[in-house]
């Protein structure tokens, strides 16, 4: 069974998904960061495939992409690093990135290798729904890989429903009209948008991302969605970290603090 399906079956609220860029801060930090995230209590890990031109990302993630590429990270190396990942990591792994490197790698080969490694799904911000349906769905599904779509405050209800219909995993609810890391905090206007999405009673679970950085924003997001995604804020933790293990544990604990008490 796909581990994303498992997570959403077992857990209905307060799901924390964390993004980091592979190859950042160090080329070989990929597996250690994943291990620390799992141990610290993350529910899903999003591994970023670095790209030269990440148009949907703000300065923090742009810089982590540049640094990772400079460190020598590329898609082939990332897949090599993930070779034995399932010996250590049992929570869902999602690869996130821009579509061009994957296209160059070869879609079929990429999907097959990801399946063998135990990857559960993909997020490609620049692969729109129609392109996915027309050309790539078949390959993804054949290898049991879920494709995760984004929706934004500007996405019409009609399109949200179409995306829901064509999704087989969670829906990534982008919290505001912005690139990553552009805004912090959640306004009442954003909360109204989250409520609107919640009221649509979608068949797939939702995770809210962009602007989630701490306990307060995580909790606000969890009120109307199944959980939330942290990206830029976590990259900043890594950027300044001298001790990855301690810093990752402290950060994740600080975000999830309230829930640990309430749930258990």
């Amino acid at each position: 069974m796909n581990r994303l399906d498992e997570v959403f079956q077992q857990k209905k609220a307060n799901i924390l998904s964390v993004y980091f860029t592979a190859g950042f801060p160090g080329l070989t930090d990929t597996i250690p960061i994943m291990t620390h995230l799992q141990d610290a209590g993350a529910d899903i890990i999003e591994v970023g495939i670095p790209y030269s031109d990440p148009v949907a990302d703000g300065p923090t993630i742009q810089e982590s992409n540049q640094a990772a590429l400079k460190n020598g990270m590329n898609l082939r190396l990332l897949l090599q690093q993930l070779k034995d990942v399932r010996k250590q990591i049992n929570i869902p792994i999602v690869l996130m990135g821009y579509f061009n490197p994957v296209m160059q790698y070869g879609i079929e080969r990429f999907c097959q290798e990801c399946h063998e490694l135990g990857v559960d799904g993909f997020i490609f911000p620049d692969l729109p729904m129609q392109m996915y349906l027309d050309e790539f769905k078949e390959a993804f599904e054949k290898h049991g890989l879920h494709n995760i779509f984004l929706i934004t405050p500007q996405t019409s209800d009609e399109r949200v429903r179409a995306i829901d219909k064509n999704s087989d995993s969670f829906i990534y609810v982008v919290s505001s009209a912005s690139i990553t890391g552009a805004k912090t905090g959640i306004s009442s206007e954003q909360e109204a948008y989250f409520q609107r999405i919640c009221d649509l009673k979608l068949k797939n679970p939702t995770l809210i991302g962009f602007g989630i950085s701490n306990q307060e924003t995580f909790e606000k997001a969890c009120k109307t969605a199944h959980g939330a995604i942290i990206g830029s804020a976590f990259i900043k933790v890594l950027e300044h970290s001298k001790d990855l293990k301690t810093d990752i544990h402290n950060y994740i604990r600080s975000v999830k603090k309230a829930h640990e008490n309430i749930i258990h």
Partner: protein
Amino acid sequence: MEYNVNDKGFYGKFGGAYIPEMLYPNVAELRDTYLEIIQETAFQEQFYYLLKHYVGRPTPLYLAERLSEKYKAQIYLKREDLCHTGAHKINNTIGQILVARKLGKKSIIAETGAGQHGVATATVCALMGMDCIIYMGSHDMERQKPNVERMKILGATVIPATSGSKTLKDATNEAMRHWINHPQETHYIIGSVVGPHPYPAMVALFQSVISDEIKMQLQQQIGRENPDYIIACVGGGSNAAGAFYHFMDNKDVKLVAVEAAGKGVNSGQSAATTALGTMGILHGSRTLLMQTEDGQVTEPYSISAGLDYPGIGPLHAHLFDTKRATFYAVTDENAMKAGIALSRLEGIIPAIETAHALAALDEMQLQPHESRYSPQQARRYYSSNRDCPRPGCTR
């Protein structure tokens, strides 16, 4: 219509709209409405009124006699440099700002390489009283300072793009990010035939006035509407798209596209996309681009800021793929030489972008028999068919 965009936004294998969901509503709105807007009578009237009285169209089609003699051919220059603001870019910015107004947008953003598109955008924003932000690579801002000053005088805010090679590609990334952050009020005027569908098709359509005029002017001047060759430089490819547009389906007209080879196609410092590129996704369309084996976009190089781009519009990728157009790559050095040569033969100093197209004449080895009319004949025909008043003319 073999070379036009299909209803899914593709030119053969190339095109489409690979954009983040954040941009979907804007791009979809444009895709669903632009043709209807452009075809409205009021739009057409205003567009052509401005092209005539504001831009100064039609631009001359000038028989360059001394250049013709040099190459033993009959060479005409389509003088887009005589457009208001000094380049063809304004044909597109006028069209797009009228579309933006129709869509109720309040502010305009654009990317620019050489600064010509930035100036053309700042100009129409001033004309229409709209806010204007131009993204420009910080490296380009250095080498094109006069254009930066012009944009500022026109009231635009110029924001340097400091990532990557600090040129056109990076300016385009920054403009897209701005659009993601301000989707509702803003229209993004892309300056070339690149970007997600419908941009390549829309920009080509606005620039098609160039080939429309060439046809009419050739008919008036030499009694035939089709040339043997159309030669144009290609960065993203907007002037080439405009010059080719009405000739694409007529295979008697050979299309020649000229890219920037920089310091040499294989020097590692080049922008010759069709020579070095492979299929991939850049700025929202599937096209030919210069990239590493790993799919990272390569930093291009050319002396010409307007050609310093790692991709090419999907239409041109298709023309290349189907061999409808012949592509040449011209080095910095040869472009400079051709530019100086034209200046001294004709008293016309071309843009360094255009000079690349002129340099291709050296490589094309035109055969005298291909030129069906001598310059002398052409001049006689032109004099007997002139439609403008002249001193002593009693007509």
